[in-house]
């Protein structure tokens, strides 16, 4: 059950004297060990502006010490490209960056508590995002009897 993440960053003219060519690849594993991750969730969502949304589980929705669970998040803003459209992303209420239309991001994520969730907030209008979270040990809510 291997999950592999690869990246390539290239530019011939950012530093004209030295062409940029970064490549890297990693097999995503459980925290601190070489066992493969074995769970994932993914989706496509339309996000209406003016609201902050949580992406992924809370720390208490993961088994054991949530901060010892390795999770990896991929998000792609599929909104039609427009300079006024972006998704603010951050940890809890601290916004870290702007995922503009057409941009993608890939991060490791580990929550120390329920106040360290991934938060996203669309700006400019309705943004469409595609996401995939790779992890392990997520607990589903108990069904009501």
């Amino acid at each position, binding site marked *: 059950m291997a*999950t592999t993440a690869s*990246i390539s*960053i*290239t530019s011939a003219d950012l530093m004209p004297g030295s062409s940029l060519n970064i490549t890297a690849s990693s097999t995503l594993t459980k925290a601190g060990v070489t066992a493969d*991750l074995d769970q*994932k969730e993914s989706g496509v969502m339309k996000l209406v502006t003016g609201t902050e949304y949580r992406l992924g589980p809370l720390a208490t929705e993961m088994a054991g010490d949530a901060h010892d669970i390795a999770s990896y998040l991929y998000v792609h803003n599929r909104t039609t490209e427009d*300079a006024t459209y972006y998704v603010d992303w951050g940890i809890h209420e601290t916004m870290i960056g702007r995922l503009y239309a057409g941009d993608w*991001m890939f991060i490791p994520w580990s929550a120390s508590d329920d106040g*360290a969730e991934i938060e996203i907030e669309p700006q400019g209008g309705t943004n469409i995002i595609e996401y995939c979270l*790779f992890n392990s040990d997520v607990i589903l809510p108990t069904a009501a009897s």
Partner: protein
Amino acid sequence: MATISANATISSDISSYPITISGAMTMTKSANPSVGLEETTGLRTKKFTATTAAVIVEHDELTDDKAHKVYIRNSSGSRANFFYVAYHASAAAAGTAETIGKLYGGDWMLFPYNGNTNITVASSTSTETQILEYMVFADGIEAAKG
């Protein structure tokens, strides 16, 4: 104007139906998506032999509220060791609210960054040397004043 292309490929057979995610982007300025980023702090490589938190991206060198991108890779080989990566003035640890995650040996990350607070890291080990590679693709660098 420079053209910087970043492509991600994520392949997984966790489910019965293997998936391949392909992401492609050209890094552009916040004010104009048809104009490419044209500044960088350069690609840096740094050895860490202690667990003390360190600032790897100083926000006051970058223009606030822009479309910067940060690439970080833990080029060490051990999956047992990692770097905490945080969006914080000075700290990076499990209990720091703005810690994003743990970057294990071999892992990489690329994320949009607004330039409003430092990016900090802390190695999980002082007994083994870990090496970090990082680069900021900047949407505005504030030149140091004399």
